């Protein structure tokens, strides 16, 4: 198929479309008067709910910490330190999350295609950093309930079990924080952990980013 033929074919298509396409001006007017919203809503309701729940959770824990400080005993220190660590980690994740969502909304579609797509994909991929941050709070959920009864009456078996769980959660959280990065997207363990459709879209995004970067270098 010669070059000229391709263009001729396309021009004929253009001519045909010119005759057969009609613009529904009434609908455009409705759009201009803000009666129509974007079909691709960047900030889904579920994301807003996640932020609200995160804030409520942090406020609830803060209130408990204040109460624990007011009625402080040596044993409540475990609860205070654990709860404060969870609050700090949750608030960090919320801040990162809100910043990413607002960045997504600021990206202009009228910039060149490669730049815009790269920014969009990078922001989409940064979702995983929130999960990595949140995972760091896992070990603290295994220490906040340490109490007087456990120290005074706890058996060796209980403590071996308890410390094993805390150690495993800590090791897992640190490992996850260090390894759950999109660079490892093609590794088998990554595919097993992140096999759901939500994560598949991130995998696709990572491949698309590599494609864009290769495209620029070619």
């Amino acid at each position, binding site marked *: 198929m010669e070059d000229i033929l391709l263009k001729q074919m396309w021009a004929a298509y253009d001519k045909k479309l010119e005759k057969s396409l009609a*613009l529904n001006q009434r609908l455009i007017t409705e759009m201009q008067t803000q009666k*129509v919203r974007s079909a691709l809503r960047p900030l889904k309701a579920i994301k807003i709910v996640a932020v609200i729940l995160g804030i409520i959770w942090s406020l609830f824990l803060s209130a408990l910490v204040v109460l624990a400080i007011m009625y402080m005993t040596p044993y409540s220190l475990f609860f205070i330190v654990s709860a404060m660590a969870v609050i700090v980690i949750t608030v960090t994740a919320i801040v990162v999350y809100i910043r990413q969502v607002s960045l997504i909304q600021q990206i202009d579609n009228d910039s*060149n295609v490669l730049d815009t797509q790269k920014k969009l994909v990078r922001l989409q991929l940064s979702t995983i950093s929130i999960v990595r941050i949140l995972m760091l709070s896992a070990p603290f959920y295994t220490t906040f309930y340490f109490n007087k009864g456990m120290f005074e009456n706890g058996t060796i078996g209980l403590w071996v079990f308890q410390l094993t769980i805390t150690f495993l959660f800590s090791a897992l959280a640190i490992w996850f924080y260090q390894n759950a990065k999109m660079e490892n997207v093609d590794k088998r363990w990554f595919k097993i952990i992140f096999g759901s459709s939500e994560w598949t879209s991130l995998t696709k995004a990572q491949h698309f980013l590599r494609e864009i970067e290769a495209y620029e270098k070619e």
Partner: protein
Amino acid sequence: MAPPKEDKVFLSVIEQHKGIIYKIANSYCHHTEDRKDLIQEIIFQLWRSFDRYNDQYKYSTWLYRIALNVAISFYRKDSKHNNAHELTADIIVVTEEATDMEQLQLLQRFIHELPELDRAIMLLYLEEKSYKEIADILGLTETNIATKINRIKGKLKTKFSTIHT
């Protein structure tokens, strides 16, 4: 009440470029309902960006950038069918599809089989855009564009020759 001047200009820009919008939507979406959503989304994003339009670029460059960005993002979304569009009618109505041109259908099929970015280059090339304008729209160098166009044309040529043998 008469629409403001800006609204009229926007309408006339869309009227002039409706073919481009349709062709881009058609290249990134074969499913009719999805295409309708995509066309709505492209026009919506064009309207949102209209007051930021920079007149150092042609309307077509501005329009291609937005339409391609929206189409590629839309194409990459997994749950397109779940997006409940609010308009019940089509913004761009097609009274007669160009179905009688067998070669054209093949060309459209082959373009649709290209990766997203190659597809954008091919569309712009077939629209007779200069290498400079294609480079401006996509954010690549003119040399890079020339190399890629040759490669894509080679691919299409092979596909057509496979069909005809």
